[in-house]
């Protein structure tokens, strides 16, 4: 009989009965009676449930990642190293991040605090705080209704990158892609399968069971139409090493579908700044630690953030199935509202992204009600090519939030082609938005606001080019 086995604060937990799709949060609280980890929303949007997991597969070696335990399936915890707020202090001695929060007055009601502690735990072990926004990003996923954040910010600043002694360090290299066979588990009639190799995936997918592919599960867990508990078999991609990672070719990057967004963000900083700037305001640190590139495309949300960038960059999507691989242009990947070109039993294996050439200029924008941790009202990505005469010789411009799928703006592109990169040209291009889109109104913004935003983002992009004097970088 198989069981889910993982390290929790250094001790081994074994579970052989529970349904694999219950969230780690529910498992901690309801099954284990470990109440330190809080539930503030159960939808990934407040951070009260934040725990830390070890990620042995990160490019620079094993790292800790803060994640929302309300979005992590119990099955996914198998083989992992999980740390919760209870695992930090040693007796009466507080961990440095706890100590800093106490000293700065970082807790009032204390309900958000365990999540904040775990976000700061990741911060303490990160070594890449080279820009101030990274620290802001680190705590963007932890809502606090009491403190006004100042004390939390101060504590974060103090502990960021401090590399405190870590008594769990030896466990850090345990993870889903560790040694061994495919992992299979059944609990309360629900199956969880985590193959190690792509070849083993097809067998798992080929069954009759109502089956779902699990990426980072940040969407899957919340899917109202098909709640995770009603899925017969969950097939996790997280054990398949070849699906993860960013390969930076000179002309083209290959981005594995299972690359966590946080890893892509880091990679994109050098080479694809457009993508990096979009990822800065993608969800929160926790969401980016869990969510994957493939999941973001396959969920096919009209306001998915990566899609406009990939559309503007002219990416293609590599699909894989038992029959082999095929490559299709991202332009043909989204086929309708929340529909994609994926065939049954086919997965996205990677995304191929051409690196902008010297004479290409790109930028991406995302506007939402709240700057951080919010879904876009409208997002936009631009890539224009400047020809020999300094005229615009190529334009790929895409929007999210303007139509049922993330979409290119053909009239805007056509208006720009052949013209000077001047404010007059971008004004004309902005006016063409209305021929490309008839956006809808919803709680994120009215139709007219969306239209106005899209036009203004074209102007904004125009300005940014003017400021560079029309020179590609």
């Amino acid at each position, binding site marked *: 009989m198989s069981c889910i086995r993982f390290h929790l604060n250094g001790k081994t937990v074994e579970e052989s009965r529970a349904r694999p799709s219950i969230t780690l949060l529910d498992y901690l*609280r309801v099954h284990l*009676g*470990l*109440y*330190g*980890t*809080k539930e*503030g*929303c*159960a*939808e*990934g949007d*407040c951070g*009260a449930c934040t725990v830390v997991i070890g990620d042995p597969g990160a490019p620079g070696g094993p790292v800790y990642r803060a994640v929302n335990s309300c979005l992590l399936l119990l099955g996914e915890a198998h083989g992992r190293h999980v740390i919760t*707020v*209870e695992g*930090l*202090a040693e007796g009466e001695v*507080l961990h440095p991040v*706890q100590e800093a*929060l*106490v*000293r700065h*007055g970082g*807790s*009032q*009601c*204390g*309900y*958000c*605090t*365990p999540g904040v502690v775990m976000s700061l735990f990741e911060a303490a072990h990160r070594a890449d705080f080279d820009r101030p926004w990274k620290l*802001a990003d680190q*705590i*963007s996923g932890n809502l*606090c*209704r*009491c403190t*006004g*954040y*100042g*004390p939390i910010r101060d504590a974060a600043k103090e502990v960021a990158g401090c590399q405190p002694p870590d008594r769990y360090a030896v466990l850090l290299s345990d993870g889903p892609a560790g040694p061994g066979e495919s992992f299979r588990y059944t609990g309360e009639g629900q199956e969880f399968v985590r193959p190690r190799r792509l070849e083993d995936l097809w067998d798992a997918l080929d069954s009759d069971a109502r089956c779902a592919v699990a990426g980072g599960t940040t969407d899957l867990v919340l899917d109202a139409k098909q709640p995770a508990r009603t899925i017969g078999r969950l097939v996790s991609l997280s054990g398949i090493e070849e699906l993860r990672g960013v390969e930076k070719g000179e002309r083209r990057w290959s981005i594995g579908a299972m690359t966590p967004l946080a890893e892509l963000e880091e990679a994109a900083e050098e080479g694809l700044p457009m993508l990096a700037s979009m990822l800065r305001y993608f969800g929160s640190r926790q969401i980016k630690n869990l969510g994957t590139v493939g999941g973001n495309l396959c969920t096919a949300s009209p306001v998915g953030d990566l899609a406009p960038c990939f559309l503007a960059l002219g990416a293609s999507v590599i699909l894989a199935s038992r029959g082999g691989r095929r490559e299709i242009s991202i332009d043909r990947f989204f086929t309708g509202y929340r529909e994609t070109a994926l065939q049954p039993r086919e997965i996205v294996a990677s995304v191929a992204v051409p690196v902008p050439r010297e004479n290409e200029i790109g930028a991406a924008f995302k*506007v939402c*009600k*709240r*700057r*951080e941790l919010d879904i876009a*009202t409208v997002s936009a990505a631009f890539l224009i090519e400047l020809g020999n005469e300094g005229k615009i010789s190529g334009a790929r411009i895409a929007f999210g939030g303007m139509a049922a799928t993330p979409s290119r703006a053909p009239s805007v592109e056509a208006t720009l082609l052949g013209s000077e990169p001047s404010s007059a040209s971008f004004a004309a291009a902005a006016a063409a938005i209305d021929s490309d889109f008839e956006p809808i109104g919803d*709680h*994120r*913004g*009215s139709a007219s*606001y969306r239209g*106005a*935003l899209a036009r*203004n*983002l074209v*102007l*904004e992009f125009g*300005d940014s080019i003017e400021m560079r004097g029309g020179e590609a970088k």
Partner: protein
Amino acid sequence: MRPTTPLHRPHPHESARLHVTGGALYVDELPEARNARIGLIVPAGVAHGRVVRIERSRAESAPGIDAVLLASDIPGEALIGPIAHDEPVLAGDEVRYAGQPIALIVGESLEACRDAAGLMRFEIEELPATLSIAAAIAEESFFGDPHIIRRGDVEAALESAQTRVEGELSTPAQDHFYLETQAALALPLEAGGWQIFSSSQNPTEVQQLVARTLGVGRHRVVCDVPRMGGAFGGKESQGALFACLAAIGAARIGRPVKLRLTRREDMAMTGPRHPFWSTYEAGFDRDGLIQAFKVATYADGGFSLDLSPAILSRALFHLDNSYYIPTLRFEGRICRTHKPSTTAFRGFGGPQGMAVIEDAINRFAERTGRDPTSVRVRNFYGEAPRDRAPYHQRIPEPRLSRIHSELSADAEVESRASEIAVFNAGSLHVKRALAFQPVKFGIAFTNRILNQAGALVHVYRDGTVQVNHGGTEMGQGLHTKMQVVCADELGIPLDNVRVMRTSTGKVPNTTPTAASSGSDLNGQAIADACAKLRARLGPVAAGMMGRACDEDLCFEGDRIATTDAERSVPFHEVAMQAWLERVSLSATGYYATPGISYDIEAGRGCPFFYFAYGGAFVEVALDGRTGRHRLLRVDILHDVGNSLVPSIDRGQIEGGFLQGVGWLTCEERIESPDGRVVTLGPSTYKIPAAGDAPRELRIRLLDRAGESRTIGGSKAVGEPPFMLALGVVTALRQAVAAFDGRTASEVELRLPATPESLLRAIETRAG
């Protein structure tokens, strides 16, 4: 200040170590809750309707289900409520808002309950629903009579005013979004007794309403509050319903039952801050002095009365904010609609009231091209006759001018204003603005009866102390302050004082922890108890030191000493000696705030004990392309009297300010046309995140500010800073106006000032 007292010094929150280690327990997590069955509330799902039939038998026989309860299963009274008893514990014949609880399912797990809920069938005949203030006014659907406050002939004064400004203002609802959702646990005890644990600001009311719902005497019910994961007013009255539901479930199955709402349930079932709609006319003379102010305001009360009359009163009492108004007429009404009952929320109507006069001043300044800060300062309360509030209470020593001038210097206002002008001249698509916001906030419950508190202090023979008081801890640091007060009063170390969880069995007949008055009231009650203990311990100590038993002694540094400091004995030895001499080591304390009265018919009286003051300078940057803004720098100077614990007060100021920013800028509660809340979670309802906090925030507590009649000379701090956020609106309006440079024209900005609303304001002016 005595050398060893913890008073007036910074301290971490008394539970901080527990918070950061995960050891702080909330209702859902108490050891007593471990074997409890789970309750799930089924909402009616229609805003207004007649209940025709409810089919529950399939749910009752579903696996893991103990019971399904309907209104007819309530053992005692079916109606509860804090003022009027007009809220059904479960909807009976009529449904009056979409989230209204109509059935309670009790089972072994939440999942089992959810499955069973899917098996229930409801036949509800939908009736026309009143879903807005406008609709309520049209249908004359109100609670009670209008509340009117007047002074002089307002029509004549408006007529003769040099400039007359008319306006209309809607202020939005706001969900409390306490991080811990509503929760309750009910344990049936032997002999018909009940232990209730509730995430409530008002355990006495929970005790009372549970007793009523169960049909038993209040002496059978004890309600404890361990701590709350935030409340902000949302658990002043509205926690009781869930405690009553847990209790009827537990009564039915004879086992403990616990309830903790999901975020969605909480946001659908409980009510937010009252939205207000106001129309006004304001008259100004040629110096920009307000001559007359006439306001008609309507609050959306939702389906039941809840605390609305008190909230409306406080709104009317704060229509003046910091400004003297010679002639006025304020009229307010509460609308009855088919929505969740709106309730207390930090400021309790005060913010909604102040927003109106701030809007009038903004429009006046915009229309006449005056500097809005000067208009505000000029209109401050001052010497007689400019020292009478609209309700005729005298405003003694308003600290407004002092706050303004000190803060202007702190915030380097002059140099920054010119920097901003230069920036704006050179920036096409981003504009900055700097605005000033003063706040005067009346402290006391406007309902006289509520201004009382009790405490119970036990000294143990080892000299350690337990303090019980009537206040509840929701994160505001009340327990920390009370621990400090007690340690100071007895002259013992902070570590030797333990603040116990609030219990109606320890301190009975308490009033809610609200109106920012928790430390004012309970601090005095604790001081009273400690005075009694000192009076008993003194003679014992004197005897031990061979002094006369009526000699004045000094309680200091864990010792009791003669005033000449010649002799002293350790506190714990005195405690032991007192016991040996059979002197009681336990005392109750009591406090009733003096001198509060208000005649609602006449609209006159002294509803407040004193006033708290504050001021803020707020600088914003607004992006004209997207409507997004940033708070660049905020300077706050706040009058908290002689702060009991400055670190706690700063936390209240910072947190309160940002919550106000949320109310005014990003929190948008959206309802469907049929009256359902659409924004049911943080994915759609956006409270401020870390990135929304001001880039730079400087907070200073006003010095030389001790208040004469309060505990330790301190002043209340929970609510007043919330309203400083109104300065963000003024600043944003100025930034909007800066885009076209036109002077003498008003800005049309809908609240909350979301990016969409701001972009529309900019575009409206552009034509």
